[in-house]
C-alpha cells in the first residue's frame, strides 16, 4: 500500500513537473516524415499541439473527416497543407494563421507545447 502511494505521488509529481515546464503536453504529435523529406535536417519536425486545438474545437470537428485518429496514418506534407487539405483546411490565413515562410516556426519547432 505504501509502495503504491509512493508510486502515485511520484506520478503526480512527474505530471505536474511536465506541465510546469511546458516542454511537452499530453497529445503532442510529432508529424513523421516520409519519403524524400525524411532526410531534411535543417528544419525541425512539425509538432501538433492537441491541447491548443482542444480549447477551440471538439474532437469530431477534425476526426475522422480531416485526420484519422492514429498518428502517422495521414500522409501530411506541405504541398497538401498549402492546397487546403489537413492543417490547411483552417490554416489558410482566414480561420487560423496562414502557412508561409514567415510562419514556419509556428509548427516546426523542436519543443512546441507549452508556449
Amino acid at each position, binding site marked *: 500500500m505504501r509502495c503504491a502511494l509512493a508510486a502515485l505521488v511520484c*506520478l503526480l509529481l512527474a*505530471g505536474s513537473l511536465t506541465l510546469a515546464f511546458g516542454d511537452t503536453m499530453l497529445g503532442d504529435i510529432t508529424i513523421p516524415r516520409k519519403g524524400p523529406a525524411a532526410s531534411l535536417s535543417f528544419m525541425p519536425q512539425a509538432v501538433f499541439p492537441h491541447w491548443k486545438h482542444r480549447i477551440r474545437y471538439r474532437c469530431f470537428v477534425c476526426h475522422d473527416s480531416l485526420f484519422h485518429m492514429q498518428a502517422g496514418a495521414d500522409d501530411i506534407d506541405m504541398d497538401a497543407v498549402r492546397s487546403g487539405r489537413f492543417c490547411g483546411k483552417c490554416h489558410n490565413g482566414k480561420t487560423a494563421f496562414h502557412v508561409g515562410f514567415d510562419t514556419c516556426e509556428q509548427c516546426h519547432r523542436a519543443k512546441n507545447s507549452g508556449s
Partner: protein
Amino acid sequence: MRWRRYLQTGLVVILFLAAGLGSGCSTETRHRILTVVFEGVPPPGQEKPPGPYIRKPRRPPPYKPPPPPMLAVKEYKPAFQIDWKALLRKLPKDAAGGVDWVKALADGDIHPASSIDPDHPNDQPVLPLDVHLDPPAQPLFKVVFPHEPHTQWLACTNCHPKIFHMQAGADPITMNKIFAGEYCGRCHGKVAFDVATGCPRCHRALAGPQ
C-alpha cells in the same frame, strides 16, 4: 637685337631645366616637385594610375535606401496574440497535473466549437448513458463508462462501430490492450487523461465507499 638673343637663351635654359626635372631627378624628388604644380601625380612606384582621377564630392551624396531583398520575408505578426501559458494556467487540472478537459468544459472555461464554420454549427447529440462493465469475480475493478462527457467531445461515429461494438460487454477490453493502444487506449494516454491520473477515475470502486 641682343634682348631677343637673351630671351632665346633663357627659354632654352628653362626647357633644359624642365627636361632635367622630368628625367634627371630621383623619383621621390620628381614626385614632390610635380605635385606642387600638377594634380593627381601618381606616387613613385605606381606610375600608371588605375583609372581616371575622380575628385571627392564636395558634399556627401544623398542617402539611398538599400534595395529590397529578392525574397521579402516579413516577420509574422498575428492579428491577435494568445498567451498560451496564461491560458494553460487557468485551465483546471486533474490529479496527474494534466488539463481536466471535462471539468473545463463543464465549468465554462472553454467553449470549443462544433464546426470550423461558425455560421454552421454541427452539434452532436449528448447521450446521458452510463455503461456498466463488470469483470467477472472482480467487483473492485468494475468500470462505469459515462457516455455523457465522451459525447460532449466526440461523435458516435468516432468510436462506433470501429473501436467499440454497440453492445455492452461485447469487447474483450483489458488493461494490457488499453496500454497497447486499443479500445480506450486509442485516446486515453495519448490525448485524454492517462493512467497517471489514478485508477479510481475509471475504476470508481477503488476509491472506496462514497
